[in-house]
């Protein structure tokens, strides 16, 4: 009986969202895009990033029993502005032996890549800069430009530490891109579309993606790989200050260094936004209800009200992720480089590959019937939950056995060592 009642309750969570629609290229569309570009990308996002830096300094200070910035303005709130003025007025030096054009181009490339990611994120109903039918692929494509920029920064500086940092960065970013992309496949599979707006709509119908065992695993993998993609502790080997000065941006000064800084924090913000959209149902406050979106009527007032709720909740979720990243940074030490690579290739990639099959099972059990029912959800959770737990246990066990097979101090086991073990 309870199941039937719950079915009714969840059945009311129908999607009323503005569905993903093709756009005509008329004057209104151009105006909307121009508005996004001027207001969003030139004012709002850099402002958010500036205050994220302030927030990180405050949070890190609390973790380390300090006060943090408190001189410029109340609570140090004007500190980002002072920092920006300082960075702009500082001298921009280019090393004499550096490749001048590439050296100037590299930070711009990194920053552009970070900015472009924001272009497909649906913040609320209708509040999406561009709704591409293949938004997810676009997202992955533009974020894959970052390693190129970092590599060029390190290469053009003609500095050994820069080159080391660039090499580490490229190895790390390429490795962690694989599990990150594989972790988004379940989401695309369940939504049946690559458009982020459609993915948002489907989560109104079937609950947040994170509330399913494969979704939870994909979420965890995506978040870990995301932290690695933005080069933050414990994955900040490319700019490990205690080993290689500042890595790829050793030779940068003034605002060009500031651009790298801006790009890093913008990427943190972007990764948080994308995670929120893909796994946490965008701006909806409750997992299985279409709550603010089903209030949407024809009037403008209702649209504004709904969007206010959505944007507020969205920003709260993003803020939570940003805080978690600051928290991780203040807590964990840096990883060793071999463990970093092993973690990507031997834990995350196999797990995310297996997870695609589990996502298929979940699709057949819960989403294929066309409507979310409590019974389907429960059975799906049980079956895929057992599968996911077994897979995680198996992968960790196998890796542990492989590591145990070699004496302490030996090279980390690889596939070849396993083959050699078998051959003996």
């Amino acid at each position, binding site marked *: 009986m309870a199941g039937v009642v719950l079915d009714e309750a969840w059945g009311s969570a129908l999607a009323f969202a503005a569905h993903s629609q*093709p756009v*005509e*290229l008329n004057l209104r569309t151009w105006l909307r895009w121009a508005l996004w570009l001027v207001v969003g990308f030139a004012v709002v996002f850099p402002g958010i990033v500036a205050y994220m830096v302030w927030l990180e300094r405050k949070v890190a200070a609390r973790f380390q029993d300090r006060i943090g910035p408190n001189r410029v303005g109340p609570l140090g709130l004007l500190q980002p502005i002072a920092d920006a003025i300082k960075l702009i007025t500082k001298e921009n030096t280019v090393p004499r032996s550096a*490749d001048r054009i*590439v050296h100037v181009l590299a930070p711009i490339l990194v920053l552009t890549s970070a900015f472009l990611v924001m272009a497909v994120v649906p913040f609320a109903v209708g509040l999406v800069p561009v709704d*591409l*039918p*293949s938004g997810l*692929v*676009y997202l*992955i*494509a*533009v974020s*894959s*430009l970052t*390693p*190129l920029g970092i*590599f*060029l920064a390190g*290469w053009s500086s*003609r500095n050994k530490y820069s*080159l080391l940092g*660039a*090499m580490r960065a*490229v*190895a790390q970013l*390429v490795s962690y*891109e694989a599990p990150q992309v594989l972790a988004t496949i379940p989401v695309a599979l369940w939504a049946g579309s*690559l458009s982020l707006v459609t993915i948002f709509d489907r989560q109104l119908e079937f609950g947040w993606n994170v509330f399913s065992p494969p979704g939870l695993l994909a979420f965890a993998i995506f978040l870990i790989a995301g932290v690695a993609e933005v080069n933050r502790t414990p994955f900040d080997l490319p700019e490990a200050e205690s080993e290689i000065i500042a890595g790829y941006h050793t030779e940068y000064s003034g605002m060009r260094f500031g651009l790298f800084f801006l790009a890093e924090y913008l990427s943190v913000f972007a990764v948080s936004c994308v995670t929120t959209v893909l796994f946490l149902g965008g701006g909806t406050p409750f997992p299985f209800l279409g709550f603010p979106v089903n209030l949407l009527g024809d009037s403008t007032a209702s649209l504004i009200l709904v969007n206010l709720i959505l944007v507020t909740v969205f920003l709260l979720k993003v803020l939570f992720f940003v805080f978690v990243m600051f928290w991780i940074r203040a807590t964990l030490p840096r990883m060793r480089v071999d463990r970093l690579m092993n973690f990507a290739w031997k834990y995350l990639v196999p797990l995310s590959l297996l997870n695609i099959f589990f996502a298929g099972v979940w699709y057949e059990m819960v989403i294929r019937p066309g409507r979310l029912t409590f019974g389907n959800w429960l059975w799906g959770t049980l079956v895929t939950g057992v599968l996911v737990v077994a897979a995680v246990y198996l992968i960790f066990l196998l890796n542990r056995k492989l590591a145990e097979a070699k*004496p302490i*101090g*030996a*090279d980390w086991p*690889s596939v*070849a*060592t396993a083959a*050699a073990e078998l051959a*003996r």
Partner: protein
Amino acid sequence: MASILFLVIAAIGVAAALGTVLSRNLVRAGLYLVAFFFAVACLFVLLEAEFLAAIQVLVYIGAVAILLMFGIMLTRDTLGDDTTAIPIAWMVPGLFMGLCVFAVLVVGINNSIAPSGWSPWEGTTSRPSLAPRESEPAWIAERREAVNDMPRVIGVELMTRYVVAFEVAGLLLTAALVGAIALAHREDVEPRAPRATARAAETGPPPEAGEPVASSALS
């Protein structure tokens, strides 16, 4: 407007391609190649194929170019400065292969047939309207579907009409992978970094006869 954009992008693309071939520095050549890939992605956008453009950027810039650069960094000539021009003896077969690829592309593109059947080439085609109209030719409906739902259309085409080409390309890539491993995997080199074996010899029991070779091949 569109034709001017096309001319500009095409000019940039040709310039970047020439830069790739003529550049002395290996990394610079790679950078020109990235610019060329980007020009191709822009052409895809002009053709309303933003999915293909994203895939182009993802695969060619995000993966191929990065791995190219990474490969350069793994060689001795890290900065890519020592690259000299290709000897003349290699230029002729290179030119020949380039012309062959061009001919294959020309023939292939000129003889491509839409699923609805063969239709004559036109200089320009306008974007199909969003709403289907009555008595429109079949290819307009196809175009609309392709523009609005490109990932699905491409997936279906790759699995039905072009499945043989798809499989052959997959086989080719697998062969390339195996070839790369065969080239890079050296069985019988001298122990280059004997750190692990030396330490094992100091601390642990003496390794068996077959082991030093195996571990040195790994390191």
